[in-house]
């Protein structure tokens, strides 16, 4: 039910909001962006910042380095595996309760782990419960942006995703300070209260339509059903006829499971295939940047400074990318923007071996920061653009659990590559290929997808034109019959 005035923005012939309400695109929406900023920030930055404690915990429990590194992996795996569970809960109860529950979970996990006596205790508390709690923060935060924004959604997404580098920049020194003052146990206790602020984020995530009772099906589906049956006039602007047909089935499915009909959605499949390949090579270059620099003979502080440069560039590029994605020219073809961002990353990595000396590395850090920020800012925006806000929750749940594989396997495989060849340049070339291929894949597939969507849009428009005419005839017939 897109109002006519959105047409001015040349809305893409992709899935629309299909929401019963008009997205506010402002007002309380900006408070929700702040809330999402906090939730996303904690979700991504918290696991990374815990690595500061690993050395002491390793000594304390007398375990090997790989055993302590498992903690990160368990946490990440739980975060991704918790995606579908999170989706189901959000579909049912909305974002707010899930985020507050998530905040409570991570908080409790950290407090419990501060009294831990074995490393298994830590795996379970911080790893499993903490990971799930963070999953309950990430998904709903992304979903609620889709309900509050339509016209300004890329900007809102870009701003919210900026939470990740900002929180990392805050949590890293904070954790160091806590560690120096309180040791790991006290720090975990205090971190439990710090992460409890996710509940504040949850409190801010007011559901858009306040009249919506709990436990109810999302009004979007009801509206579309009614729209298809009773409402002949306004265009739903739903250029995806597959959705209309499956809406009936989807309604019952949403209440029970995640929306598995997404696997028949063309755009979703393109996104999924491309992302799975891309994630193998997405994080490894960040992980190995500092070790590579040290390998080249650069001292530890300068190597760490490279990461700081990277994070700063990332921080500023994300909102800027969101802003660009919102412009009149790019918004309708935002999939091409994403494809460009992915390909740009690939080219960056492929050219990396040419970088020489510290200046070369700094230049690379800047360019890579731009690429990483662009992809991160658009990552969920394009998914929303493809499947629409109502199905986004299920979509992101499915995507995260499938992405679990490449995200977890990526760094160890890269590590194996480095160990086998003894050189980092093969790693970066491989990552370059792993990013460039999906980039080109996205360009090609979305070209066809856009074409098909346009055709479907025209068909539907033609079809709906006939219906008002028919109803007019009917009415006139009725009146004549009176």
């Amino acid at each position, binding site marked *: 039910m897109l109002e006519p005035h959105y047409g001015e923005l040349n809305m893409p012939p992709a899935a629309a909001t299909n929401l019963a309400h008009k997205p506010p695109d402002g007002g309380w929406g900006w408070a929700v962006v702040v809330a999402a900023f906090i939730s996303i920030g904690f979700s991504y930055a918290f696991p990374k910042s815990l690595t500061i404690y690993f050395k002491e915990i390793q000594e304390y429990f007398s375990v090997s380095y790989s055993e302590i590194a498992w903690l990160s992996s368990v946490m990440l795996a739980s975060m991704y595996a918790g995606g579908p569970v999170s989706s189901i809960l959000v579909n049912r109860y909305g974002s707010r309760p899930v985020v507050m529950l998530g905040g409570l979970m991570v908080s409790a996990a950290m407090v419990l782990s501060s009294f831990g006596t074995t490393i298994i205790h830590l795996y379970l508390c911080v790893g499993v419960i903490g990971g799930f709690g963070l999953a309950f923060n990430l998904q709903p935060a992304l979903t609620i942006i889709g309900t509050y924004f339509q016209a300004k959604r890329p900007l809102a997404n870009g701003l919210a995703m900026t939470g990740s580098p900002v929180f990392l920049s805050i949590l890293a020194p904070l954790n160091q300070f806590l560690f120096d003052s309180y040791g790991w146990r006290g720090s975990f206790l205090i971190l439990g*209260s710090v992460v*409890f602020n996710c509940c504040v984020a949850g*409190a801010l995530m007011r559901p858009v339509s306040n009249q919506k009772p709990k436990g109810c099906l999302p009004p979007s589906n009801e509206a579309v059903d009614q729209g298809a049956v009773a409402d002949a006039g306004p265009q739903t602007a739903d250029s995806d006829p597959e959705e209309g047909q499956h809406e009936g089935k989807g309604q019952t499915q949403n209440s029970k499971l995640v929306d598995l009909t997404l696997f028949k959605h063309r755009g979703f499949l393109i996104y999924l295939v491309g992302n799975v390949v891309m994630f193998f090579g997405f994080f490894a270059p960040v992980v190995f940047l500092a070790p590579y620099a040290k390998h080249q003979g650069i001292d530890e502080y300068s190597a760490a400074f490279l990461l700081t440069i990277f994070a700063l560039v990332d921080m500023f590029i994300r909102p800027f990318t969101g802003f660009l994605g919102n412009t009149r020219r790019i918004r309708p073809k935002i999939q091409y923007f994403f494809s460009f961002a992915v390909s740009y990353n690939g080219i960056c990595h492929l050219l990396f071996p040419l970088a020489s000396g510290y200046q070369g590395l700094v230049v690379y850090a800047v360019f890579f920061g731009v690429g990483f920020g662009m992809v991160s800012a658009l990552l969920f925006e394009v998914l929303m653009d493809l499947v629409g806000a109502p199905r986004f929750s299920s979509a992101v749940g499915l995507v995260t659990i499938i992405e679990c594989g490449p995200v977890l396997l990526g760094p160890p495989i890269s590590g194996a590559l480095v160990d086998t060849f003894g050189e980092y340049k093969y790693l970066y070339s491989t990552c370059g290929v792993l990013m460039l291929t999906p980039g080109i894949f996205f360009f090609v597939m979305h070209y066809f997808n856009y074409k098909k969507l346009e055709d479907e849009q025209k068909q539907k428009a033609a079809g709906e034109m006939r219906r008002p005419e028919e109803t007019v005839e009917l009415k006139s017939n009725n009146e004549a019959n009176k």
Partner: protein
Amino acid sequence: MENMPASWKLLLMLLLVLTASCGRVHAETLAPSPKPLASVPALSADMRKVAVLKSQNSTQNVQLLNPVNLSLECSLTADHNNLPNISAFWSQDGREIPDSRLTVALENQQYHLQRLFYISGEEMLGSYSCVFENGVRADFILATPPFGEVRDKPVVSYVRDFVVLPCKMEEAKPKPLSWRWFRGNKTHKEQISEQPERFQIHSEERKSKLKVINLTHEDAGVYYCGAVYAIGTTMNPIELKVITYQEPLKPFIGILIEVVLLVAVIFLCEKRRSKKNTSKGNEENVDQNNIKLQEEEKGAEEGSSMRQRKV
């Protein structure tokens, strides 16, 4: 060598002096005055360290593992003065070594000074310097292999908990013979012996860990891990701080209260706003109902009037 009777030692010393006076190179042993370390040095050195000086002082670190005959040499490049002779002396730890003052002749634009030292034990480690008349000096700092990473921040642990203090000698440095742990301050260190209920020491070749169990406030302080070599022990200080659970509890509760307050404020504001909206909405509904009623009445009237007219 230490078991030789005194008379033999004296004879050998005389022989040495005779041979030394023939040559230009002065090779002397340095016997520490209090202890009768009567080792007769060979004229050849096991180790040789050279400092080349021009106008600035130089400092060198010499890493020693075992007792050694060490030859220290200083070569001072002559400046424009080109004095034929220059006097110089050796000092140990800032004090001039007695009978070490010499006059060095200019040779190939250089003043060359050399001395052989026999470093037998830890007391002999320290800073040795050759000092020339014009003030230029070279310092040789003799020491056992130092630790690479020195932890400057204290390790924090809790009462009734345990703590593991680690110590590592990197791959690049030589392996120590054994490890020892000490407690105390710079002047007085006490070795820690293994007591099953309080201290556990676990040492490997390059690593050593001290586990202090059932901590109390008295356990706080500086601990030293010592890497033992034949010639001496390198100490690495680690500070231990013991605190109670109440310390982190304060910020924890503080932040918890902050979160609860914020959440409460947000929910209260929302309730207030929704109350306003519903009361507004009620008013609007009432108005709308009134209007509808009026319209219906009007319509009914018109309808009836129409019917009346029709009839």
